[in-house]
């Protein structure tokens, strides 16, 4: 399958915007700026980019604690996201959610989520809505290797399988759950093999390769839209930074390992490939990079300047109506 030029640009744009956002976020945190703690997805950009390139605005995504990339890929405004990390009234969540809860339902983004595994049933439910209403929408749950050991994973996959729901379970296997290596905690070699327990397709892809992710996700999403039910898509990937902003990852993995994965960087690899193969001119890619830089620069400037929420906000938005 050839990927068209606009899609290639979109993939690159998504990856670069995420990377720029994440690195700037870490920089702000390290500089002691009053930003949220958070979990950077730098290194893993090809996954949300490749998957979400197939999604329409009315498709759904349910995300995790490591959710910045999913949000950006699903169309949440990075400016509102940065303001959220700063806890500002202008944030995507009015400053009430922070990094772990960024959401924009109008974009089909049903939220980052602080409870590991908790978003799989949510995505399953969004797919149920599509099924009951008879639309062609699909729903995607992103989750980590560690999450595949949660009961919620099991229950959601079984439910989606028996009801043939249009949901794609995308496992971002970045080899670690906090400081725990996947080979210690997960009892099976490929998490995708857990699909065998539900009679659904399980697919392994190179999560550092946006082409590969795009292709495999496309098939799964097409199958889902056509009523073929769920897929478990495992993307082998890697996070570049600590588990969270305060984590020193050198306590549990070697620098060589990190360097090895950095040498297979999803953005660099993609750039080399599309330029070498003459699919996208270098200048266009550089333009994307500059735009992303400018966007995130502006996002930080705005986030710093924007107002904090007023104290009345503490008690609003709990209920649609109460009493």
């Amino acid at each position, binding site marked *: 399958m050839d990927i068209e030029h606009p899609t290639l640009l979109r993939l690159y744009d998504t990856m670069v915007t995420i990377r720029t956002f994440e690195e700037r976020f870490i920089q702000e945190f390290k500089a002691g700026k009053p930003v949220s703690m958070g979990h950077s997805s730098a290194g893993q950009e090809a996954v949300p980019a490749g998957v979400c390139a197939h999604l329409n605005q009315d498709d*759904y995504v349910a995300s995790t604690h490591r959710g910045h990339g999913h949000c950006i890929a699903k169309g949440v405004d990075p400016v509102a996201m940065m303001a959220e990390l700063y806890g500002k009234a202008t944030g995507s969540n009015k400053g009430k959610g922070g990094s772990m*809860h960024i*959401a924009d339902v109008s974009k089909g983004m049903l939220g980052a989520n602080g409870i590991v595994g908790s978003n799989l049933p*949510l995505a399953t*439910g969004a797919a149920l809505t599509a099924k009951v*209403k008879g639309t062609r929408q699909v729903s995607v749950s992103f989750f980590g290797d560690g999450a595949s050991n949660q009961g919620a994973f099991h229950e959601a996959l079984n*439910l989606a399988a028996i009801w043939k729901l249009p949901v794609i379970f995308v496992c971002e296997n970045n080899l670690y759950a906090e400081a725990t290596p996947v080979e210690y905690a997960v009892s099976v070699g490929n998490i995708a093999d857990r699909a065998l327990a539900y009679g659904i397709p399980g697919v392994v892809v190179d999560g550092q390769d946006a082409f590969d992710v795009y292709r495999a996700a496309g098939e799964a999403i097409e199958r889902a839209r056509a009523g073929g039910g769920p897929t478990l898509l495992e993307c082998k990937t890697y996070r570049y930074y600590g588990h969270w902003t305060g984590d020193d990852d050198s306590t549990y993995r070697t620098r060589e390992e990190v360097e090895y994965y950095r040498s297979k960087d999803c953005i660099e690899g993609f750039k080399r490939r599309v330029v070498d193969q003459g699919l996208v001119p270098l200048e266009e890619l550089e333009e994307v990079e500059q735009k992303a830089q400018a966007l995130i620069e502006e996002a930080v400037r705005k986030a710093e300047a924007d107002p904090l929420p007023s104290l009345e906000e503490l008690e609003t938005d709990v209920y*649609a109506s*109460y009493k």
Partner: protein
Amino acid sequence: MVGREIPFSLAINESIRSEMRRDPNVILMGEDVAGGAGREDFVDAWGGAFATYKGLITEFGPERVRDTPISETGFIGAAVGAAATELRPVVELMFVDFVGVCLDQLMNNAAKMRYMFGGKIEMPLTVLTYCGAAGGNAAQHSQSLYSLFVHLPGLKCVAPSDAYTAKGLIISAIRDNDPVIVFIHKGILGRKAEVPEEDYTLPIGKAMVGREGADVTLVGISSMTGVCLKAAEELAKGGINAEVIDLLSLSPMDEDTILQSVQKTQRLVVVDEDTPRCSMATDIAALVADKAFDYMDAPIKRVTAPHTPVPFSSVLEKAYVPDVAKVVATVKSLWS
């Protein structure tokens, strides 16, 4: 003229049926809410573990009346996800005791998404759950537990006391745009009351005065309202005139009705089948000890289950649940 009387269980059925007719986005999910799933000859085999949903699948079909696997996190989580998108799911948690396997979806998602998202989402989810000690179901199938849910901001909780309040509150719950947990006491499912055929709503957040009185206020929850009413009759024989409040809505709670009553009676006994610590009983007592302190003439009393699991043996189960005798004795102690 006495109107039509139907049991509590049928009131549940009618309320869901009427809302499913009214709004195609309303769906029903749970274990064996129909039964015999996938078997054409056995549609509607159970209609729910308490047979409260009989006939719904035949009217609305398996797309809207969904039997689920025994995966409460999966299907209640899916109901939360469906409510976050465009459906208005009614989901059964068969016994409230099973909340242990799925609390996360209710506590961390359904209850908090609106707040965490800065108000930019609605969560029209209704959870029906069956609670209370009755018939020797023992420690894991007899708890009340509504106090746990009331503790959690973002949830609404109602506990109908009879068929009439059940129909009105369940319809209100389904139409509500927040997550509402409906606590249904298993022991009173067969009890009949006068219930209009048409649909009607009862406001969430409002208590009802079940009996007026001037000497002491009894607050009852769910099946305990019946116990309070009987105790009031008993007390009347001894010249004590009890006012009985049927709480109905636990969160939000109708503080005004309680406070107005105790300002009149100056005495309060809360009757609650849930266990005593950090409970609805302490909640109501604390409210009054704060906001009506100056009116009170006697210690604020609570009649509750003991701080124990629910025992199996019938003699022990009977001793576990608050009854008329205990309520009467407690009330009388206020004048001793």
